[in-house]
């Protein structure tokens, strides 16, 4: 905007001046000069684990793109028709219009199968990215004050994504999706007091009725995406407003952000990363078949195939319903008989309790540790053994449930009795999480101790020295004197310290000059920073 203040050679001045003119025109109308600059200048820290949220974001974008394409061909109707499309094996079979239109997309629309598979793979990636992103937020303490609100929004986003996935899976009205809906119906029935009314109202009568696919469709393409989009917006706005957390390291304090300004580096990397996520989904969709509904046949109440599995993110609930013992409570009140279905505990209570625990975790931790300060520096998981242990416990719980959701497949593949698998799951669910806690806690303490040893005695060099008395000892390279642990990553290998000079690049002939020896002798006790920014940052910046 201010380039014109500088005189320059004509050839160079001409282009900027036209730009400047356009810029001034825009600014006269929008007064955007200074907010725009602030936006361009915003600093983002860089770390691979900060990309996980982005994977979720970009898969969501791919979902919107491919999903819009699918709506142009999908017919959310349960009307009975006889299939006459080009897939020969199902010609003449009675099915719903929804199922027939899915076959149509797969066989009779150019590239339709590719887009369908991209949509499904993107959904799987979306949920995987969300779960891993959630774990990174948890294990690094990124949810602490002031980011509790974003954690809460995140938990809601997880459930929205779950519902988006489940409703999408239900749309084609094939044997698997109908079975999924049937179980969902049974879980609704299991809700005390209002269950039958709830199920009857959503399905407009007994299962399956004639409207459920249409209602699920509206939820899937309108209500849920809208809510998700709104919450993602709020989520990102908060990340923007509160500024991203950063790892502790040289020059990084609780009151600053060290990184790159958003434009151009960070923004360009984001665009590139979107392309990479998109590419991954395209490759998956092209090379790996997913949800071949034409093999399952249309949904019929009396038919189900063996080893029918829901998508991976539903399997933990499938597992909990499989493992939960057959407990049904029947009781009478005022002469009426009431029933608590066996699905109530694993299908209603368990997800409810998990959600409440997750929503409450940041506040519980705050209450228990009495830590009300603002935290902008991430914690290394080893430095918070209790939280890391709890997280390991939760992950173990989730993994056992997920495996149990496919225990028939596991039993068959490994020739184990199914009953044994079920019992292993039940016992494992009680014993393994506490064990995971114990082990993780110990490992964290061990890692802490090792870090402090390195700080005190130096890095192992791998060089063995023979002492005059014949003993062999390993030479340690001290990092400095009186170093305190400050939450930074501690170097453990010689080459992290630059013991070996980096090779000069070039295959046949050198294409760069070897680096000149540093002018300032000691590069402060911080030559280990991951991003390689350490050597340059000023040492007079306070450390914590």
């Amino acid at each position: 905007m201010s380039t014109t203040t500088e005189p320059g050679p004509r050839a160079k001045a001409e282009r900027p001046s036209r730009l400047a003119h356009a810029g001034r025109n825009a600014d006269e109308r929008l007064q955007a000069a200074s907010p725009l600059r602030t936006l361009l200048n915003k600093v983002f820290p860089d770390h691979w684990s900060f990309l996980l949220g982005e994977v979720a974001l970009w898969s969501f974008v791919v979902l919107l793109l491919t999903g819009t394409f699918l709506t142009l061909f999908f017919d959310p109707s349960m009307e009975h028709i006889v299939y006459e499309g080009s897939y020969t094996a199902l010609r003449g079979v009675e099915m719903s219009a929804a199922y027939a239109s899915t076959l149509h997309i797969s066989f009779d629309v150019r590239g339709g199968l590719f887009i369908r598979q991209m949509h499904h793979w993107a959904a799987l990636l979306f949920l995987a990215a969300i779960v891993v992103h959630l774990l990174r937020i948890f294990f690094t303490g990124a949810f602490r004050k002031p980011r509790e609100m974003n954690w809460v929004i995140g938990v809601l986003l997880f459930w929205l994504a779950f519902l988006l996935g489940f409703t999408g899976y239900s749309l084609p009205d094939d044997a698997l999706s109908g079975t999924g809906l049937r179980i969902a119906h049974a879980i609704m029935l299991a809700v005390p007091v209002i269950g039958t009314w709830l199920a009857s109202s959503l399905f407009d009568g007994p299962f399956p009725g004639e409207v459920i696919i249409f209602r699920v469709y509206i939820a899937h393409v309108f209500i849920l995406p809208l809510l998700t989009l709104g919450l993602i917006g709020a989520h990102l706005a908060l990340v923007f407003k509160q500024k991203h957390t950063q790892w502790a390291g040289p020059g990084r304090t609780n009151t600053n952000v060290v990184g790159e300004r958003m434009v151009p580096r960070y923004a360009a990397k984001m665009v590139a990363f979107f392309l990479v996520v998109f590419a991954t989904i395209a490759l998956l969709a092209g090379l790996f078949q997913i949800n071949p509904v034409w093999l399952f046949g249309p949904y019929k109440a009396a038919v189900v195939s063996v080893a029918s599995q829901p998508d991976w993110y539903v399997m933990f609930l499938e597992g909990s319903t499989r493992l939960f013992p057959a407990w049904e409570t029947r009781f009478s009140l005022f002469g009426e008989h009431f029933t608590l279905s066996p699905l109530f505990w694993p299908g209603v209570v368990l997800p409810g309790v998990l959600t409440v625990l997750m929503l409450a975790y940041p506040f519980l931790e705050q209450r228990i540790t009495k830590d009300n300060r603002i935290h902008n520096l991430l914690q290394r998981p080893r430095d918070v053994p209790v939280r890391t242990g709890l997280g390991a416990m939760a992950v173990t719980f989730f993994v056992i449930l997920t495996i149990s959701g496919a225990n028939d497949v596991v039993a068959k593949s490994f020739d184990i009795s199914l009953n044994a698998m079920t019992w292993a799951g039940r016992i494992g669910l009680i014993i393994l999480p506490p064990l995971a806690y114990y082990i993780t806690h110990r490992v964290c303490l061990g890692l802490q101790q090792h870090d402090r040893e390195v700080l005190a005695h130096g890095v192992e060099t791998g060089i063995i020295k023979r002492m005059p008395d014949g003993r062999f000892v390993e030479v340690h390279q001290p990092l400095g004197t009186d170093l305190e642990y400050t939450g930074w990553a501690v170097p453990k290998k010689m080459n992290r310290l630059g013991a070996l000079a980096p090779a000069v690049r070039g295959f046949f002939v050198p294409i760069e000059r070897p680096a000149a020896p540093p002018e300032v002798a000691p590069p402060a006790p911080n030559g280990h920073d991951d991003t390689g920014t350490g050597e340059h940052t000023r040492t007079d910046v306070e450390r914590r």
Partner: protein
Amino acid sequence: MSAQESLETEHGPRPGTTLEPAAGTAEIDINAPGVTRFDLVREGARRDGIEIVVYEPRVEPGSRLERRTERSVALLFALAGLAGAAFIVAYIWWPWEYPGTELNAFHLQRFYTPVLGVTLGLALFLLGAAIITWVKKLLPHEVAIEQRHDGPSAEEDQRITAATLTNVVDESGIMRRPLLKGAIALGALPLAVIAAAPIIGGLIRDPHRPLPEMEAAGLDLSPQDHTGWHPALNDGNPVRLVHENGTPIRPADVAVAGQVTVFPGIPRGTTNYYADSPALLIHLRQEHADELRGQLYELNEGSMYGNYVAYSKICTHAGCPPSLYEQQTNMLLCPCHQSQFEILNNARPVFGPATRSLAMLPLALDDEGYFVAGTVNDAGELVGSDFKVPVGPSYWER
């Protein structure tokens, strides 16, 4: 490359290595002579609370390394373009229509989707790689430090905003005017109901409202309490057991130790409209039938026909069809959560999460010798009969 060049013009400093520590922190006069473009950039950053502490070229400008990197970026872009073009060519000209019976392992149509995936994936991936390489290898390396301004707003601002807010409340005088308070509550409540009514009210459906077919038969029976086997759906006559294609079934149609899925022989009886009705008709071996007959529940007395028995095919757990028939153990296994039902003992659940036995469908023969759902009463008359208990998953009022 323009970004790179511009750094070397007279507009900017040739950004050296580490910048002077203090340089970025003090305000500069942007009108002073000799102020470069980069000085302005830094001044802008400074006004945003940002200090650019490192700003240096990644590669020696004009060096071999730079030229080589430039070439590889250009190559990546070119390859991306090639892959993209390949995608478009394949999309349009690769045979994509399903060839029906002519499909064999080598038919080109089989490779349509993989070819699309590989070409599009490559194009996007190469484009991404080109941009990343450009940014990471050619753009100047930068470290910027932005100060956070976390804490609460200034106390002054807090007070002013609080006053503005309380003033709003005060202006309305709602605190001083209890009459208005009550009136608002009275007036707004119906409004809230009005907002909720069309949404919830339109959706609500009484689970006990009978099916139109039942209503036509003049019976006020809630859909949970009957299935398609109810004689009222067949003008009061016992309902025939039929195959999925609608043909009725004689005892001789089912071989010993054989089984067949049966549906009520009424209009729409084989469709999902009567999704709770399907049953599994089993022809037991003599010794097995005797074993079952020896331990029939009272409820199931008289429901077998000879060595034939029919169980509901809707799992009492969550409603899947427990249709895996294990011959050796005489178990019915539900594929959804692995409940196992003992065929020779009233289809009692013996493993897994199901809590109730599968309902037994009373079997009899009509005068043409076809299976029907019904029992023969003491007077020797055939009366149609549904399952004797509700089938499928448990629910609250059950």
